[in-house]
């Protein structure tokens, strides 16, 4: 069944994300991508994952794939407190703006990026951010790693059950070279 947006009113236009029901579907895109960027929102530290939370997951993902992290909405404080220094702070709306520019090198000056992985921003705000990416940042492959379906990504979890969701997150981590 085709996934539907988590917030019922947030339906989209003619194009919609593909359902991320197993980690393997990302293999091809991950192999093709040269420069991914991980965007982590303010809600990440409220979402549990394994023995930690989704900030810990971001750190693991970043370490595994040598991925730059942009923390939005003040999430940077969590990274700073955990001694992680591959994260920079930007606003979600600033990120949405800059991602439309294929030459944007980002706050690390290591871009341009060709893939984003994103989670932890309030659902409707991530929805709008990804709309900017889908419509004007067409050089990017967007993977939404929240549990709830984000139709403007290329790949998104389809409002998945929590247990299964965390299993696949771990598989994705392994896919980029990390371990649980």
């Amino acid at each position, binding site marked *: 069944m085709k996934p539907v947006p988590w917030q019922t009113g947030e339906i989209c*236009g003619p194009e919609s994300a593909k359902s991320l029901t197993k980690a393997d579907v990302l293999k091809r895109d991950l192999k093709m991508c040269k420069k991914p960027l991980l965007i982590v929102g*303010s809600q990440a530290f409220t979402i549990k994952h394994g023995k930690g939370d989704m900030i810990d997951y971001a750190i693991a993902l970043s370490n595994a794939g040598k991925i730059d992290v942009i923390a939005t909405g003040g999430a940077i404080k969590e990274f*700073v407190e955990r001694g992680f220094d591959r994260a920079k702070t930007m606003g*979600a709306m600033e990120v*949405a*703006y800059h991602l*439309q520019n294929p030459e944007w090198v980002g706050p690390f000056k290591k871009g341009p990026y060709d893939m984003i992985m994103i989670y932890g921003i309030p659902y409707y705000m991530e929805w*709008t951010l990804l709309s*900017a990416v889908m419509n004007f940042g067409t050089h990017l492959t967007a993977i939404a790693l929240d549990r709830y379906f984000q139709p403007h990504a290329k790949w998104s979890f389809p409002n998945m059950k929590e247990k299964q969701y965390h299993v696949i997150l771990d598989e994705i981590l392994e896919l980029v070279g990390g371990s649980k």
Partner: protein
Amino acid sequence: MKKKAYFKADEADTGLGKFKGLEVHIGTIVDDDWDEPMGPTPMPNPTGLRSWDHKLLSRYQPSYMPYCQVCCLCTFGKCDLSGDKKGACGIDIKGQQARIVLAAANIGCSAHLAHARHMVDYLIEENGPRTELIQGPGTEIHAPVARLVTGMRPRTLEDASIILNYCETQLAHTLSATHTGQEGSWLDFESKVLHVGMIDQLSMEIADLAQISTLGFPQADPDAPLVESGMGLMDTNKAIILTIGHNIIPAASITDYITEKHLGDQAEVGGMCCTAWDITRRDPKAKVIGPISWQLRFIRSGKADVVVVDEQCVRTDVVSEAKKVKAPVISTSDKAVFGLPDRSDDPIDDVVKELVSGKIDGCYISDHSMVGEIATRVALELKPKRRKMKFFPTKKQIQKLAEDCKKCSECIRACPNDQPVMEAVLAAQTGNMEPLREVYKNCIGCARCESACPNDYDLHSWMVVAAEADCKDERYMVRTGRGAIQDIEIRNVGQPIVFGEIPGVIAHVGCANYPGGGQDVHDMAEEFAKRRYIIVTSGCAAISAGHVRDENGQSIYERRSGEFDAGCVVNVGSCVSNSHIAGAAIKIAAIFAKRNLRGNYAEIADYIHNRVGAVGISWGAMSQKAASIASGFWRLGVPVIVGPHGSKYRRMLLGDPDDERAWTVYDARTGDRVVTSPAPEHLFYAAETVAEANVLTAKLVIRPNDTAKGRSIKLSHYIDIHETYYGFFPEDVWKYIRRENDIPITLKDKIMAQLKENKWKERRIIDPTLLKEQIVGGGT
């Protein structure tokens, strides 16, 4: 001043001879007793300030986040605009997004403008066209927005009407631009957004000026009275009349009737949204129940014996909701009749009888003078039997009902704030009401959870029951709207604001679509008030700011002064009072810098943009009116921050701090092109969290013209707030250092290290302007 004049005489004996049936029409009278020279753009048309708009829009580029990739506005469509496709009319997706933004701003402006028109026409009929417009003592620069935009000094209601004619013409033009096959460029759509925002600001000024002048409101009064506020303060021993909306005229007839008939010990009036502020400005015995999002919970409480609605932001299901608690609804605005029968021409006794008997659910009364008597008599008659009724389920009933929850999650999926409604219902099954109470605290009262529930649970009511004690405890004192800021207050703070020594003016305005409850507004206001920024409030945000008590039981308005000065919290009033916030910024240019205002928009906007560290925050921005209010501030060069739901306006106006060209200005003294700090960095921005909003606010008050001392003070706050909320020293401080004496002395080592790391070079402190014509000698 331009105005039309007409007079008629049955017989006139003049030096030219005797005339019978004399009628004289005069097209224009030029009022020459004002020695301020007329500026270049009196009453500009939609392209009159296009050049200024394009300057702003080249620095602050629209960042579109389409809500929809199709256009469905004409029968060519739906047109798929995704990718690089164009619609049948030729429009692309950027143009379409800008068009939708313009449509929203037009809708917002139309609401304020129609409100102003109704108010002025009504007051002319009541008081005559020559009724004087008075902003209050110490406001010699009277109606600053009108002066700036039109070149007129509106002295009478008749003048106000002329200005509204201009506004109506402009709105017709900007609205027509959204029609199929009109404007096609996103840039020019956006320019028109700014134009209609300016028109909105002007119409708001006229609306508030008219009511301040005629209805006994505080007039530029820093000591405007403290009034009672909160659901818990409504006295159920009296008949309660609830007024909802923005237009005081019908509500005023109620308070007048109660006063005139000495019924104050038997009936009381409470308001929600801006009507609440305006009735308390007129009658401090009236009460501010709460912001717009509270209307459903108060109606459902059954406390209101009659509901009187006027216009804007009224729940469109108000009649069916009020019917559930057997409270009749009186509609008073032709803009919001709600399908009710028109009883304006019927005898009052008959109307009262039918409303009390329940024969009709409500009625439309267009004659405002009737509203006071009908509403009061109905409330008084209904009160005794209504007080015996129970409208909410008991906690036991909720527990029982909750057992049938289907666990479908539809309530959560419908909630705009993703509140754990279903988990709270499941907890209620065990008699634990605490989770429902927690949801209440963050609930914005939309009741979408109820609409989605397959069991038709009255979930919003359940939350209110769970939070019964909190509702009773909602008792606050809030300062009602003072109106304009006095010239003397501006004179006292103008220099420290322009030099940056008062670090900023922060305005909390707008609606109550908060991501996490109204306390955030209070906390943000307090964070900056304690740092001696000037805090201004209006509308629903002004209510929410006052709905928090400190350890001494005082609200922010009781703790802080209402005088426009460092550390104050000044409530200007209702939505239309937002114009006084713009007016204060405009008056700084006139009083401190002695700039001419008259028809001189671009110069003054350039002055404000470069010198006045003002930031607007609308944490719960929801409406199209909020969009048009923001647009008016953008055209003045004042940045606006909205809460995360504001991202749904689907367009931000963002600067790129790394693009030096965008931050290049003229030095008015020399004509040199000079790169300045990226300040203010953005013009419109949706912040994800309070933390982000606070950090951004501290940064957005920075202006190119700050003195070294002022810049140093602003940076000290920015750094401190950044460290508090983000946990580390900001990495972009070096961009804001022009010379070493900009550096806060206690942070010198850290900043010097950052300057070195970024190969910083000293820059001049200049007299900044975006306008070539402002260069000494005219830039030629």
